[in-house]
C-alpha cells in the first residue's frame, strides 16, 4: 500500500472513530450511570442528521451556528424525553427497558417518516469547508473530513474537562462508579440523570449533524450505527469514557482497514465483531472496566 493511501486511510479511520466516540460516550454514560440499555440511542443520531438537513438551508454558511442550535434543540428534546419517558424505566428490569426503547425506535422512525418523508437526502458541505488539501503529490483530502475530526476532538476535550474538572463531572464520575453511594452522599440523582441523558442525546445528535454531509441522510440510519456503538461501549468497558475513546479509535481502524486490505476486504463486516469477541474472551469486562459496581 503506497504511503499516501495509507495516510488517507489513517485519517479516515480516525475521523470515523471520533464520530463513533461522540455517540458512544453518551451511550456509555447513560448505560453506566443510569443502568438503562437504551436502544433508541441510534435514533438520536438520525435526529441529528435530519436536523442538519432541515436546518442547513436556513443557516447558509453559518455551519457552526447551526451545529450549536442543533445541539441545544437536541439537549432540550433529551431533557423532555427523560422527564416524560425514561425516568419511568429506571425501576424496570433490563429486558423490559430493551423492549420499551425498541418500541421507541419504531415510534421515532414513523414520526420521521410523517414529518420529513422516506426519501434519501444529501446535505451540502458549506463553501468554506468544501475544498480539499493536497496530500503528497498524488492524493488530496477533503477539508470537511478534517473539520469533522477537529470538531470531534474539540468536543472530546470539552467532555474531558467537564468530566474531570468540574463539580458536575465529579458527580457524574461518582454516579458511574457507584450509583447508590453517590445518592447516599447527597447527590441529586434525578437531576444528574436528566442532565446526563440530555447531554447524551445532544452528543449523538451532534454526531449525526457532523456525519450528515459525509454520508447521506436516510431512513433507519440509526439502527446500523446503534450496534457498532454498543460494541464500542462494551469493548471500552461500560461507564468508562476513556475506554470508549480507545475502543472507538480501535473500531475505526479495524473497520476502515478491513475494507481496503486485499484478501480480507470480502469479510470486512466481520472484522469489528471478531475484534470484540477476541477482546471480551481475553478481558471479559472490556478494556477499561470500572472498579466496583
Amino acid at each position, binding site marked *: 500500500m503506497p504511503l499516501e493511501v495509507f495516510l488517507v486511510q489513517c485519517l479516515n479511520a480516525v475521523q470515523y472513530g471520533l464520530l463513533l466516540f461522540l455517540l458512544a460516550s453518551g451511550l456509555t454514560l447513560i448505560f453506566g450511570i443510569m443502568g438503562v*440499555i437504551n436502544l433508541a440511542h441510534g435514533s438520536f443520531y438520525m435526529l441529528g442528521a435530519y436536523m442538519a438537513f432541515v436546518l442547513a438551508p436556513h443557516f447558509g454558511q453559518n455551519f457552526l451556528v447551526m451545529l450549536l442550535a442543533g445541539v441545544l434543540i437536541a439537549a432540550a428534546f433529551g431533557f423532555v424525553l427523560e422527564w416524560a419517558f425514561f425516568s*419511568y424505566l429506571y425501576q*424496570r*428490569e*433490563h*429486558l*423490559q427497558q*430493551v*423492549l*420499551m426503547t*425498541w*418500541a*421507541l*425506535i*419504531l*415510534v421515532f*422512525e*414513523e*414520526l420521521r*417518516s*410523517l414529518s420529513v418523508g422516506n426519501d434519501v437526502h444529501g446535505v451540502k458541505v458549506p463553501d468554506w469547508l468544501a475544498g480539499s488539501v493536497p496530500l503528497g503529490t498524488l492524493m488530496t483530502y477533503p477539508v470537511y473530513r478534517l473539520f469533522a475530526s477537529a470538531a470531534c476532538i474539540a468536543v472530546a476535550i470539552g467532555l474531558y474537562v467537564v468530566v474531570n474538572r468540574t463539580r458536575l463531572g465529579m458527580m457524574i464520575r461518582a454516579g458511574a462508579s457507584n450509583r447508590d453511594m453517590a445518592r447516599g452522599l447527597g447527590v441529586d440523582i434525578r437531576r444528574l440523570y436528566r442532565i446526563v441523558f440530555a447531554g447524551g442525546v445532544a452528543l449523538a445528535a451532534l454526531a449525526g449533524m457532523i456525519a450528515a454531509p459525509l454520508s447521506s441522510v436516510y431512513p433507519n440510519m440509526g*439502527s446500523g450505527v446503534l*450496534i457498532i456503538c*454498543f*460494541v464500542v461501549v*462494551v469493548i471500552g468497558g*461500560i461507564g468508562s469514557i476513556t475506554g470508549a475513546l480507545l475502543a472507538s479509535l480501535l473500531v475505526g481502524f479495524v473497520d476502515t482497514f478491513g475494507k481496503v486490505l486485499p484478501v480480507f476486504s*470480502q*469479510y*470486512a*463486516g*466481520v472484522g469489528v*465483531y*471478531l475484534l*470484540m*469477541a477476541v477482546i*471480551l*474472551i481475553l478481558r*471479559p*469486562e*472490556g478494556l477499561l472496566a470500572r472498579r466496583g459496581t
Partner: protein
Amino acid sequence: MANAKTAWLVPVAGAVALGLLPLVVTTYGQDLVMRIMVFAVFALSLELLVGTTGLVSLGHAAFFGIGAYITVLLSPASEAGSVWLLLPLAMLAAAAYALVVGALSLRTKGIYFIMVTLAFGQMAYFVFHDTPVGRGTDGIFLNLRPVLELGSAALDLGDRMHRYYLTLAALAATYALLALVLRSRFGRALAGIKVNEQRMRAAGFPTYPYKLAAFVLAGALAGLAGFLLAAKDAAANPELLSWHESGVVLLMIILGGLGHLRGAVIGAAAFTLLRELYGTYSIVGPLADHWQLTLGFTVIAFVALLPQGLIGLPARLRTARG
C-alpha cells in the same frame, strides 16, 4: 392459576385447536398460523436460554438462519430432498455452531454475554451475506420442498396441508420436549443457575457444562425452526441471521412473559398477529402505512401495564376487578 394435575390440558387443547384450524380458515390464515408456529418453535428455543437459565442471547438468529440455509443448500436442485436427511443436518449444523459460540461466550456474563453472542451472530450473518456460500443479499431459493417418506406413504411439504401439520407436530414436539426438560434434574439445575449461580457451584454443580448443554440444545431447536421456515418459504436469506431477527424473537418472549413455555408461544402469536393487523389496510385503514407507530405504542403500553408479560394478563384483570 391452573393446578399441576390439569396444567397439561391447556397446551394439549391448544394443539388440538391448531390441528382443527385449517378446516375453518383460508389459505392466507393457514400461512399466517404456520408462520406463528415456526416463530413459536424459535421463541421456545430462546426461552430455554433466557427464561429458564437466565442467559440473554442476542445472537440466536444465527442458529435459526443456519438451519434454514443448510436446508436450502443441501436440497438437490432437480428433485425433492428428504426430511429424514435435511432436518437432522439442519439441527446438527446449528448445534455445532452453538457448541463453538457457547463454549467461548459462556466465559462472560450479563451484558458482556449479550454482546459476545451478538458478535458471533453477526459473524455468521456476514459469512452468508458477503461470501459466495450464501449467494449474497438476495439469498437462495428452494426449487422443490423436501419430502418425508413414511414407509409407503409420503408427506410432501410441497402441499400446504402436509406442511401445516409437520410444522404443528414440530411445535408440539418442541413444547413437550422442553416441558420434560424443565421437569428433569437438568432443568432444575438450569433454574437454579438462573436464581443463583454461585450457590449452585457451591452445591457441587459444575455450572459451565450445564449452561453449555442448554446453549447447544437451544441452538439445535432454533435450527429446527430454521428448517421449518425454509420449508415454508422455500427460501433462505441473510436477514434471517441478522441481529434484528435475534431482537425480534427476544421481544416475543419478553412480550409473552418470561419463565413460562406458554409465554413464548403467546408472545410469538401476539407479535406476529399485531404486526399483521397493523399492516393490513382493510382493517386499520390508512393507519396501515404507519404500522410502526401503532406497534410501537402498543408494545410500550403492554410493557408499562403488564410487567409480567401477556401471561400476567388474567391475574392483572382479577386484581383490577377486586
